[in-house]
């Protein structure tokens, strides 16, 4: 097992707070995260959590959905409104609708129990990375992005056409559209797009991007003559500037 702890990439060790009413699970997660370089605090319920949060140095919270007293959803909503640390919600309710509700109430991510421990690790990192990126601009938490009459639901990962019809996006298409939406009016080369999608070290094929983009274009095709994603000869692609 060679999982590099986030501490390697960050200056100080990452502090995680685990809030769960099940003592065994709390202990197990805590142990697992400690083994992977986190400094872990635990709380059995919302009140204990608030005391720990008062310290002010918690970087991420792993929150159980169902707890005695104040439940996870309400805690999550409260934290989100107060601008607290990112939250990953754990839930025994694996239904898609529960996931959506959790995300809409401001959870940064949502995982159904039982989860793969390494996946939890990956999600925590992703959430932290996103939080970093957000400091620079786009608010990743906004559930809906509007552009030219279209709406992109960042939680359900679907497009809403100007006439109200829902258009599904594959994961790849969603990520691609996100890359474009974050950088409207900028010409992007294929390499740049791949970097934004998979991180700088990934190696994917150029052509796969072209296929994805042509599909995305087809879904974005509208009565308007003008393309939302334009091909820039010799460079790559450009998303139509937002007004």
């Amino acid at each position, binding site marked *: 097992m060679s999982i590099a702890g986030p501490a390697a990439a960050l200056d100080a060790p990452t502090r995680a707070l685990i809030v769960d009413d099940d003592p*065994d699970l709390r202990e197990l997660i805590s142990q*697992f995260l400690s083994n992977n370089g986190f400094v872990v605090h635990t709380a059995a319920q919302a009140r204990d959590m608030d005391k720990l949060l008062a310290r002010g140095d918690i970087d991420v919270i792993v929150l159980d959905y169902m707890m005695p007293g104040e439940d996870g959803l309400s805690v999550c909503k409260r934290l989100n409104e107060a601008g607290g640390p990112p939250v990953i919600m754990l839930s025994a*309710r*694996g*239904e*898609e609708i529960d996931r959506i509700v959790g995300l809409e109430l401001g959870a940064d991510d949502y995982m159904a129990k039982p989860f793969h421990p390494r996946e939890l690790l990956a999600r925590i990192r992703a959430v932290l990375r996103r939080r970093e990126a957000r400091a620079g601009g786009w608010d990743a938490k906004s559930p809906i992005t509007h552009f030219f009459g279209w709406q992109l639901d960042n939680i359900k990962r679907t497009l809403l056409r100007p*006439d*109200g019809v829902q258009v599904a996006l*594959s994961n790849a*298409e969603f990520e691609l559209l996100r890359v474009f939406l974050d950088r409207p009016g900028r010409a992007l080369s294929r390499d740049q797009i791949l970097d934004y999608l998979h991180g700088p070290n990934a190696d994917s094929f150029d052509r796969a991007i072209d296929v994805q983009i042509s599909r995305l274009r087809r879904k974005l095709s509208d009565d308007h003559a003008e393309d939302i994603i334009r091909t820039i000869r010799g460079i790559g692609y450009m998303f139509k500037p937002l007004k």
Partner: protein
Amino acid sequence: MPQNARGRRPLFVSLPIFWQVLSLSLTVLVLALGINTLLVLKAPSPPPSGYTLNEVATALRRGEAPLQNGHRLRAVDKETPPDYVTHPPVMWPGAQDFQTLIRTRLAQDLGVPADTIWISFPPHRDFGRRASRDRFLFDGPPPQHGPGPNSGPNQRFDPSRPDMPGAPASGAGGGAPPQAGPRYTGGPRVTADARANIFFPAFNVTWKLSDGRYRVIVAPKSLIEPWQARLLLGFGLTALLILPLAYLLSQRLSRPITAFAEAAAKLSVEDSAPPVPADGPREVRQAAGVVNAMQTRIRKQIESRTMLMGAIAHDLKTPLARMRLRIEDLPAPVREKLSQDIAHMDGLIRSAMSFTSAHKLAEQVRPLDLSALTESLIDDMGVVCEIGEASLAPNLMVMGDQVALTRILTNLIENAGRYASGCRVRLAAQGDTVELSVLDDGPGLPEDALEAVFEPFYRLETSRNRDTGGTGLGLSVARALAEAQGGTLSLRNRYDGDRVTGLEARLSLPRLRPKTRRKAAAATA
């Protein structure tokens, strides 16, 4: 409030069915009797069905005569006499008297001898003994024997006087029997005036003309007598008046029952359907109360079942999560095996939960592009499962839920991957439905299993299914979700001649026409 509502309800409709039906029957009965009684008592008497002697005489003289009942009495000249002239039928005594009377008087009226006149009564007419005496002839004082001093005006009518002109001395047609004679002799009230008003039941007359021909009046045969017509009119009037009334009342009676049935039918389909309205007759209100109570019980049961499922899921998933964390330190081969077991249990719990909550879906459908959804899904699933070249019609809209549709398709594609190592997806519009087919080249299914596999936990071969890791709920969940969105899901074998070449899972959904797009958008906005 219910008290108020009951107060405002029309009285008749809220009465028990028993009383409604009883009162309806009584009303109809009373009305029918009343109408006919009124008709009998108040209506003018029907026109006479026979004719007077004057009318007959006129007809014989002129060939035809108008009758008081609106018909015309016609006489026809013939070369040969009718049968009753040549072969006089045998008559009962009263009728003979009567016959003689009529002959004599007609002969007098026409001024011819009585033996040139023949009378015959049609069969089946009311010429009984009683009729001949009581109804048609006399209501005067008792007959007197012999010509009285005051019988002057009456004399020429006396049929039994041999000395009278035209008297049936020789008795053509039977003649007057001796014992009958005295009865008629003294009828003082039978005057010429009265004759005009006495109606005789229709009879046949033949008059031998001077040129040897016979003038014949045949009793007109009418289908129904005026009194019968009057009775039938009464029936008709009754029916005419009662039918609309009975129709209206019956409709009012059946309306609450129909409404009840409709509301009850909705209950079984929709979870959120309003309770059956407690309106109408008492019996219907009682039934509605019972059904509503039952519905509440069922709903509670479903709720508690869902809650139970949720509780079980929660209480199972937390230990599963613990197990998943605990096995992290185990050697890789053991960990992988245990991890698979945990994943299988997790899948089972998830399927059971979606199966119990599928009915909630119908509330959250919205217009969506099924073509785009299918394409994205194939894109995403291509990593997991072999998906062959697809033929997808673009821009097919349906009312549906993206999560549910994704779930259905995922289940179907995973099944194909499990049993046939790959599949092709086809999407096409068929009239007003959109058909989404997942086709595989696997072994297919036995015909009797094509429907049975949709039963929860139905297993074709236990061993095989365990190996491939199915939960036994995939198709049940898929079908429950499809039906919650107004669609259908079915399986059929694909054939090449007689050989099964694979399986087709077909999802049909009602198509949303592009022209209704704007409206749909407005509805969801």
